[in-house]
């Protein structure tokens, strides 16, 4: 594969404001489900940062493998899309996706998920979540291209499942020097 689009999430910049999460709901008008979610990365009660996570448009997508109705497909740029026409609501994809990216629409009982805002991509625009991040913590990257050396696949204290080869890279947060109260 020549191209695989994915997300670069900079935990050093992300302030966990959830703008990306709600901007996505705004764009797709989702009232009871969310494509993007912010996970707290904790260690012994200390928040180390936030991980903004949606569909990772994996290199080996489990959703495509398990869906008997062949609802999922992968574009040449690596974006994993979903077509609801044939969906019978079996929810196998939800069980299979390590990131629970596919969601059930409680009304239609069918699946929907992050589509990488592909119509925007096709017009050369950023996906909504990326465009809405005030501090610039989200970026679109082609993980087949060399990515910044400081970006990595894993986070300490928080495992990102790797067997599907998710197209997500992270930049670790930098903790401030802290002086805690005496007494």
């Amino acid at each position: 594969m020549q191209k695989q689009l994915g997300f670069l999430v900079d935990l050093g910049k992300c302030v966990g404001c959830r703008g990306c999460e709600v901007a996505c709901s705004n764009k797709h008008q989702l009232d009871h489900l969310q494509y993007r979610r912010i996970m707290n990365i904790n260690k012994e009660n200390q928040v180390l940062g936030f991980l903004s996570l949606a569909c990772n448009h994996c290199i080996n997508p489990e959703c495509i493998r398990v869906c008997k109705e062949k609802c999922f497909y992968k574009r040449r740029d690596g974006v994993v899309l979903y077509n609801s026409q044939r969906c019978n609501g079996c929810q196998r994809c939800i069980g299979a996706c390590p990131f629970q990216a596919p969601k059930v629409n409680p009304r239609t009982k069918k699946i929907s998920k992050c589509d990488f805002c592909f119509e925007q991509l096709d017009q050369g625009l950023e996906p909504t979540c990326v465009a809405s991040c005030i501090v610039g913590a989200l970026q679109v990257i082609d993980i087949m291209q060399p990515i910044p050396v400081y970006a990595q696949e894993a986070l300490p204290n928080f495992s990102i499942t790797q067997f599907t080869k998710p197209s997500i890279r992270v930049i670790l947060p930098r903790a401030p020097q802290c002086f805690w109260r005496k007494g």
Partner: protein
Amino acid sequence: MKQKSVVSRRTFLKGAAATVATVSFGGTFFDFIFSGLSPAVAAENSTVELFRNACPRNCYDTCAILSTVQDGVLKKVVGDPASTYTRGTLCAKGFSYTRSVYSPDRIKYPMRQIGRGSGNWQRISWDEAYTEIAQNMLRLKREYGSTLPICLNKYSGNFDIMHYGIEGMLTSIGNTTRATGTPCWPAGIDAQTFDFGTIVCNDPEDIVNSKYLIIWGANPAWCSVHSMYFVKEAQQRGCKVVVIDPILTQTASKADLYIQIKSSTDGALALGMARYILDHNLYDGEWLAKNSKGAEEFFSYLKNNITLEWAAEKTGIPQHIIEMLAREYATTKPANIWIGYGMQRHTNGGQNVRAIDALAAITGNIGKSGGGAQYAQLETWGFKYHAMSQSKPANSGGKEDRAININNFGAEVLNAQDPPIKMLWIACRGPMTQDPETAVVKKAFEGMDLVVTADLYMTPTVEMSDIVLPVTTAFETPGVNVSYWHYWLSLNEQAIKPMYESKNDVTIAMELSAKLNELEQGSCTFPTSGDLQEWVGKEFSEGIYKQFGIQDWQELKKGPVKAKSGLIAWQDGKFRTPSGKYELWSAEAEKYGHFPLPVYVEEMQSTDKYPLRCITPHWKLSIHSQFQNLDWMAAVNNEPHIEIHPKVAAKYHIKDNDSVKMFNDIGYITLPAKITETVSPDVVAVYETWYKNKKFNVNYTVKAIPADMGKKATGAPGIAFHDNFVAIQKM
């Protein structure tokens, strides 16, 4: 499929209804629109329009918004890229507007409640509502000889300039009682008024020019998230960012240095730093000589009363850290301090702000790009206030309006005599969740003949009202907005028709006036008709035109504009104090009962009975009682917590998510624990907000203790919200 390409909006609506039936989900047309199943038929024959809006919700950022309206439905909101402050983005709250406008929870028509608090609501017509309200107003005037028994409590739910028409409406019926003051920031305003003459801050976009930035008791990552871009940008350009806070906030976690301070001792830290700066000759004598009054007195106060050992002892910050901070702040130029509103919500809050201002002054950082002591500004608020400026009808009784303290609202309503208060009009405000001493506020409501609340949602304040009037959101009505932080001016266009039977507050004023005059000719001077768009135009003054470099307000339809001058506070060195100088020694302060110098005033202490200080800061998904009630927000978070330090938790055998009762002598709340080292060991934090259908209100435990300052500039002192001492207990 030919048929579909020519569907009119009408048949599209019908088609939508049909689809509702086939996929079998209940709810309204709007539920359908928001199910994410945008019907393809709509796209073919639809009109898409763009409108300019502004977020009016008492937020630093007051964002310029670009709204997409398709076939009369608000489909999408984004930040307006024309504003270099908003930069094309909104926050999570702003992005939820497409939901809040169409929320099934909106109040749809006027209603009357049979039995306050009973939940027994009946739909009534607008005419019935106006009649009942007008009759009561006229009856009270007859019984008491004036309209003073009618009390208005309106504040920050919508800071659009036209919304001051609510005050205008009350003026137009005669002398009335007004909840006066401002709850959130008055101590700091007075402090800066004593020091500088008024509040003015640098353009926040100027933060990028700072080489040293202390964010002192503010949490922009939650409360002014657009500023975080400039903070990060400054950091990228080599600025060191320091956060001083009793809580390791989200902002602190992004800083270079976080210093945990004992809550309410900020003045001790500032004075300790000042002493170090003095001892090491790091002050700017030249600036002081030219621009200040009282430097000598201040320095001798420092020499005689302040030591670094004392400051370390007071604040809990090791002495060498105070020394490092003082040295770095005084020697890195330009150095900026952002003074938050949280740190002045104390009985010594105003004094603490004065001490911090003094740091900026003695180091000569005032009036400089990249420098300053930023608090807020009201320089861009010079409108005509046409909707607000109404005349009083002749012979309506009483000599003048009566002011009662908004910050002790319940008690002051109950105590009002000659005449007593008998009717409340509540707009843009939620005293039943946001005011201290909820029980007292409730009692005040109970003593009324009539409570009228204009609101969007069924808040606890509406639940305690007799009549509720449905109001419009910013998207359904025209207006104009400025910020108390940045220097942009945004028009708010009407993007969609008012939903259901909702009306703008000014329209309500006009129609109520018509009713009052119908019942008693001449009883109300408020115009009974008018075009809201034109009324927006009437708010603009020559001063605003000049400041923003426009000839006509209609130019704002092309986009927001930024002030052309005054972007660096006090650059001209003309302070608005009595002496025209920066006043370290303020006779004005003395007049208001304070020490003339910025001195340390002892902070409030915990007691054996109530050993923990409860801090109630702003929550990232709300602005006071707004936003968190929406289902979109509930999907992100729907549970308040009490944040407890692990050491404290261990002492009380409390584990994560255990149910904890927090109480003091006025009330209690029960909520799940969140054990976190981010709070100080002598502090618990509970974020103030309103959750729909939750028995949560942190103000059950908050007393109406006044802050030290606020009387001069805002008419009443602030509230020492963070001087609330409590005990906790595992349930």
